[in-house]
């Protein structure tokens, strides 16, 4: 079976090129590119919102992008069970669109962080992580100013209890002050993933490692 993917494009997103490359290299097929004003999406198995600075991070990171017409189509597809993945600004957009719980706030250090972190795979039983081992520790780059995950106590308790926390910063590498060291979460239904780190930037030896590759292999049905 060939998995088909689409990448959402908004003005100010700048990590789409890396995401296109990762999806193309790992699936063998170039993803559809879908501009923000589209009101319908092609028939795909995976929708990706890449990173960057949509609308210059005006108002709140991801706030304006999340209200563009294409996001209503993304929400409909998510409700139908299509897999949706948001990385970095894509994660911020999914939260602002209400497709994931919580919010991402300014880093506790107030500084933009661009470095490598260690992540533990907290839930390897998702469509996005099944090619990892439970508890596996992987390397991954981060590059963001607003990655400080916040949720109210009830929400935090719920997502922790339901196994919705998929990636956690580990080995003292939390770069932003996120509650419970949360780096990535899935929706209650499990088909929407948001994460701050950039797995698309660690998929081959030329990147200095390929720890991000298993995420794409999981979600694209290319498990090694």
């Amino acid at each position, binding site marked *: 079976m060939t998995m088909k993917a689409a990448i959402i494009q908004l003005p100010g997103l700048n990590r789409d090129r890396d995401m296109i490359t990762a999806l193309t290299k790992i699936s063998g097929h170039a993803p559809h590119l879908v501009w923000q004003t589209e009101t319908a999406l092609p028939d795909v198995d995976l929708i990706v919102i890449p990173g960057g600075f949509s609308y210059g991070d005006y108002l709140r990171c991801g706030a304006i992008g999340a209200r563009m017409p294409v996001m209503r189509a993304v929400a409909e597809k998510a409700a139908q069970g299509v897999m949706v993945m948001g990385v970095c600004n894509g994660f911020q957009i999914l939260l602002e669109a209400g497709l994931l719980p919580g919010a991402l706030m*300014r880093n506790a*250090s107030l500084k933009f962080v661009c470095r490598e972190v260690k992540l533990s795979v907290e839930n390897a039983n998702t469509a996005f992580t099944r090619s990892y081992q439970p508890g596996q520790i992987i390397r991954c780059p981060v590059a963001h100013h607003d990655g400080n995950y916040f949720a109210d106590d009830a929400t935090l308790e719920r997502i922790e209890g339901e196994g919705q926390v998929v990636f956690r910063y580990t080995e003292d590498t939390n770069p932003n*002050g996120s509650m419970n060291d949360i780096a990535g979460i899935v929706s209650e239904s499990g088909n929407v993933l948001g994460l701050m780190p950039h797995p698309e930037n660690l998929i081959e030896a030329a990147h200095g490692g390929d720890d991000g590759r298993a995420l794409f292999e999981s979600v694209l049905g290319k498990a090694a």
Partner: protein
Amino acid sequence: MLKARVTVTLKNGVLDPQGKAIEGALGGLGFEGVDHVRQGKVFDLQLETNDRTAAETQLKAMCEKLLANTVIEDYSIEIA
């Protein structure tokens, strides 16, 4: 025509690192006894209506849908 001001502030219990940094800077300038500095946002809007009730309903919807992220923020509306 009505003029309105929407103020968006962080909810109690939500950490505000920017407010903390501002508080520190105020202390550094010699302003003593300043606590709990919280940074927020102000939006000034002009509405093409004279119906204050309708304006308030519309402004509330704007806050809920865009101006505030109600996961972390509260808002208040003033109509001049």
